[in-house]
């Protein structure tokens, strides 16, 4: 059911962990299945210089978290905001139909973490 790429990212997830004093942090939950993803961003001059995640969820949830962090690392905020769950799914060589919703979690986590960063900036 899962592509080789999904399994590879699931087994060796990149960027797992936390960032202390992260510039942006957000935790999102998947109402459909109860899975939870937390994303930490370190941002310098509008560029995501470091990113970490923690995920409680299925293989697809972990794999999409992992590849999403890879995709945004080194990108500007604007670029990162453009990453859709479709792009994440494609980067993983696809997901089974009943697992497409899992990739939404990754998109949401990125957006929410950036929003958190922007809010913090405003309130500085």
């Amino acid at each position, binding site marked *: 059911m899962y592509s080789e790429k999904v399994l590879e990212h699931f087994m060796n997830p990149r960027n797992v962990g936390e960032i202390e004093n992260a510039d942006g942090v957000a935790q999102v939950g998947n109402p459909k299945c109860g*899975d939870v993803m937390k994303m930490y961003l370190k941002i310098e001059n509008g560029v995501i210089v470091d990113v970490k995640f923690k*995920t*409680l969820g*299925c*293989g697809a*949830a972990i794999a999409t978290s992992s590849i999403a962090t890879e995709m945004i690392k080194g990108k500007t905020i604007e670029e990162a905001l453009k990453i859709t769950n479709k792009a994440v799914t494609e980067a993983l060589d696809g997901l089974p139909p009943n697992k497409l919703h899992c990739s939404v979690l990754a998109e949401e986590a990125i957006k929410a973490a950036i929003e958190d960063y922007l809010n913090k900036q405003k309130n500085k």
Partner: protein
Amino acid sequence: MKEKIIYFDHAATTPIKKEVLEEMIPYLTEQYGNPSTIYKLGREAKKAIELARERVAKALNADIEEIYFTSGGTESDNWALKGTALANRDKGRHIITTTIEHHAVLNPLKYLEKIGFEVTYVPVEPNGIVDPNKIKEAIREDTILISVMLANNEIGTIQPIKEIAKIAKEREIIIHTDAVQAVGQIPINVKDLGIDLLSLSAHKFYGPKGVGALYIRKGTRIHPFLQGGAQERNKRAGTENVAGIVGLGKAIEIANKNLNEYASKLQKLRDKLIDGVLSKIDYVRLNGDRYQRLPNNANFSFEFVEGESLLLLLDTKGIAASSGSACTSGSLEPSHVLLAIGLEPEVAHGSLRITLGEDNTEEDIDYLLEVLPEIVSKLREMSPLYES
């Protein structure tokens, strides 16, 4: 990573036993006759089916004419429920079942609800066993059918069918039991249980997939479900899956002969497993009654862990197991059975079902007890909710 697969998912399916396949092979090769035909090739096939029927009857203490072959547990359940509900709708339209039945029972009942029947889903106790008194209380004037499984497929709990059948019989209500998980694990005697209908499926006891049987007590009012030719004494049409039926017959014969030995071996392994997991891992619970469960079933919930991930990591270690996690099911709902025994969805999400079989050894259990704690830790470390 081990090379060999350690198979811990015998409730999902079992491999076909060598002796079973050997008896099937002639019917997949030279003995290809259609059992409905009159010449020798057909008569041989017919004889093989009748021998299988005799073996099933013997294993269940049923009469030979009370055994009908089907395409599996699902067909047996569909037939039992829809067939009796429709044949007895002049008497009433109320059906009683439990909240922990297999979907092969629940979904036909949902369909019957749509076409005018009413179904009461009796909740089970926190140990996963239904209280016969609650069944009794659910009975109405117009109750025509009670369906309660003999053993649960997820948590392995064994239900008090004999007591429930007695209650049903006092009120002349038809009683069906889904014994798909029980056959080959615990002794079954349909006369002693006092039931009218019993479903079974060969691939759960080292027989082939796609063949099952329905026991129908003589005199039970039931409509045919598959209609067509005159096979199975006009009650179940379709050219017989001869090889499959032969396999079912042989498999149930062997299962019944080895029952005690098999059960006591597995129970010992199961208890070692349960004790090991409960002592080695934190934030874990055993689902289902500690003792009144199938000898081969252990079902745990680990907090801060998601079942599908757990299975995938076990798979990389060569271990095949199962989970009631929403993420493994197409439906995205965690197991209705785990919810029915009172688990929170998050906890149900982190469940692991280990079901043992005759090839499993103490070393298999040791190996699982070695890798499982590591895997659980690894996943918990990735979880945003877990604080070590």
